């Protein structure tokens, strides 16, 4: 039996394919493996952040700090590697720890003091962004050999196309995300929490631990995305990843996750990111849009996509909940 719950994902994947094919018919050079791979290369960091974000949103929360944490990670990495000469082998794990810690603190505040996640993570967003400027308001370029290598190594695939190391990292994170979500207790507790926090508590689930873990996980993902972003940009800069939180949230929601919590799939998020990427690629292949028409068309494409998604999975929507 074709389960109801997979319908919305199937619709999402289908619409992605439609968009890609439409682009292929319209633009020369669009229909190639490398264009798809570029979606991954250019959105590796977004994929990673979106995995963390999916977990947060599934619990019914939200994390606005992700973009800033990415910027902070690039800034700290650049500063430590470049200006203080620390080895990447120390810096990268350190970043991951700091990111997780950042998330942990936010999670603890959210849970223990019962403050709305939106606000706590908004403060986190201000704080992380602000700390970047405290380190430096200028950009710091990284020319460390390891970072450069990570940035520029191409992994060749048959057919002359290639991907970057960051893509591998992102795919691993996706796979790990799916595993955690569906095959571990933590994952199921996250879904339970999103379904009903009160019930989760009464069912004797470790609500505090789960909630804090989710924000820690998101902090970790942000930091890892920050590391990948550092590879991508080879620089630290306080204005990096501006507004990325909205892209991440949009990807998650486009992928079929409900902001009210309890429902959502990492796999859907994966396609949510790709769909945003395809929209952008279409725009740059179009190449004749003025700045404002660019925005309007992005909005329109997003609207059409969501409209079709709604219409095609309407059967599910009429279900009582």
């Amino acid at each position, binding site marked *: 039996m074709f389960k109801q719950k997979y319908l919305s994902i199937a619709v999402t994947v289908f619409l992605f394919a439609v968009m890609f094919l439409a682009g292929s018919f319209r*633009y*020369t*050079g669009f229909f*190639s493996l*490398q*264009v798809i791979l*570029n979606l991954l*290369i*250019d959105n590796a960091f977004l994929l990673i952040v979106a995995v963390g974000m999916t977990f947060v949103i599934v619990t019914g929360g939200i994390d606005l700090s992700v973009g800033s944490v990415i910027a902070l990670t690039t800034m700290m990495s650049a500063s430590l590697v470049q200006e203080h000469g620390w080895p990447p082998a120390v810096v990268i794990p350190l970043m991951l720890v700091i990111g997780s810690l950042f998330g942990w603190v936010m999670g603890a505040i959210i849970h223990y003091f019962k403050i709305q996640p939106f606000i706590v993570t908004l403060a986190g967003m201000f704080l992380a962004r602000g700390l*970047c*400027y405290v380190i430096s*308001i*200028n*950009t*710091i*370029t990284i*020319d460390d050999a390891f970072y*450069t290598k990570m*940035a*520029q190594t191409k992994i060749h695939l048959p057919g002359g196309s290639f991907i970057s190391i960051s893509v591998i990292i992102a795919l691993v994170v996706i796979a790990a995300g799916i595993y955690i979500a569906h095959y571990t207790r933590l994952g199921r507790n996250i879904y339970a929490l999103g379904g009903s926090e009160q019930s989760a508590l009464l069912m004797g689930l470790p609500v505090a631990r789960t909630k804090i873990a989710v924000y820690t996980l998101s902090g970790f993902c942000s930091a890892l995305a920050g590391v990948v972003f550092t590879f*991508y*940009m*080879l*620089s630290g*800069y*306080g*204005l*990096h*990843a*501006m*507004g990325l939180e909205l892209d991440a949230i949009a990807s998650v929601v486009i992928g079929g996750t409900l902001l009210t919590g309890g429902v959502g799939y990492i796999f859907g998020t994966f396609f949510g990111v790709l769909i945003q*990427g395809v929209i*952008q*690629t279409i*725009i*740059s*292949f179009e*190449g*004749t*849009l*003025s*700045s*404002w028409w*660019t*925005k309007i068309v992005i909005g329109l494409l997003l609207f059409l996509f969501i409209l079709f998604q709604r219409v095609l999975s309407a059967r599910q929507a009429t279900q009582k909940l």
Partner: protein
Amino acid sequence: NNNNAEPSKQAAASSAAPSSEAPASEAAAPADQQITMGFAQVGAESGWRTANTDSIQSAAKEAGVDLKFSDAQQKQENQIKAIRSYIQQKVDVIAFSPVVESGWDTVLKEAKDAGIPVILTDRAVDSKDTSLYVTFMGSDFVEEGRMAGAWLAEQYKDATEDVNIVELQGTTGSAPANDRKAGFEEKIAGNAHLKVIASQTGDFTRAKGKEVMQAFLKANKDIDVLYAHNDDMALGAIQAIEAAGLKPGVDIKIISVDGVKDGMTAAAEGKINYIVECNPLLGPLLMQTAKDMLAGKEVPKRIVTPDGTFTSEQAKEALPNRKY
């Protein structure tokens, strides 16, 4: 330095690109096959930027260049993505105004591997490997700051009392803000009487410029000079100064950067004392350079578009034929 107040666009172009004797005949060579140029613009964050975009788009049309334009909405990631897609589309030349200087090596290397030459406009990149791009044309933000500072230092070189300066910075961390601040500070450092007593970001906008200036006026009794990183903030600040019952340009001297039309008008009215121009009309020069380059000509690594400066008088003269 600050006296070449009347740079004609054409003059700048021909003097900067040394090998453009007769553009019409040169254009013949690549005209057989149309040039496709991918241009990755920063965004449309200001009137200045829009003028820049307009100039490039209309110049491309005139020069018969097939322009692929994309708007990165102030995000470096988006610019990188756009450049990747240009590589994918196998354009003949890629041009872009980097959002920031750093972080371009990877994608530029991909362009180089694909054999596509790259032209930077408006802002440089800080790659060690200068073979990654063919040329960089555009203004120099630090230099703009220096010009502003130099004028001020000159005005107050005989000052015996402290001169209180307030500064309206651009968006925190953005390259023009950082550089215009640095250049300015460099030039006024020599005079101990020139003191920046307050400095705050006005996000390059009129509304913020006005709001911050209002606060400055309340918090500081005696402001002599305002240095704004762009005209828009200066224009907002002028309204705040007028609301406080002071005369902009007289009670408080105002220096700003950009030279957009509204700014020039204010300067002509004597409300802005000194404007450092930052010229957005790079289009014709860019197209010319691209054609030259593809025709196999030698192109200099750095093409400077000289920035003009305007005092009130000069602004009055220049105003009638300002286009943007």
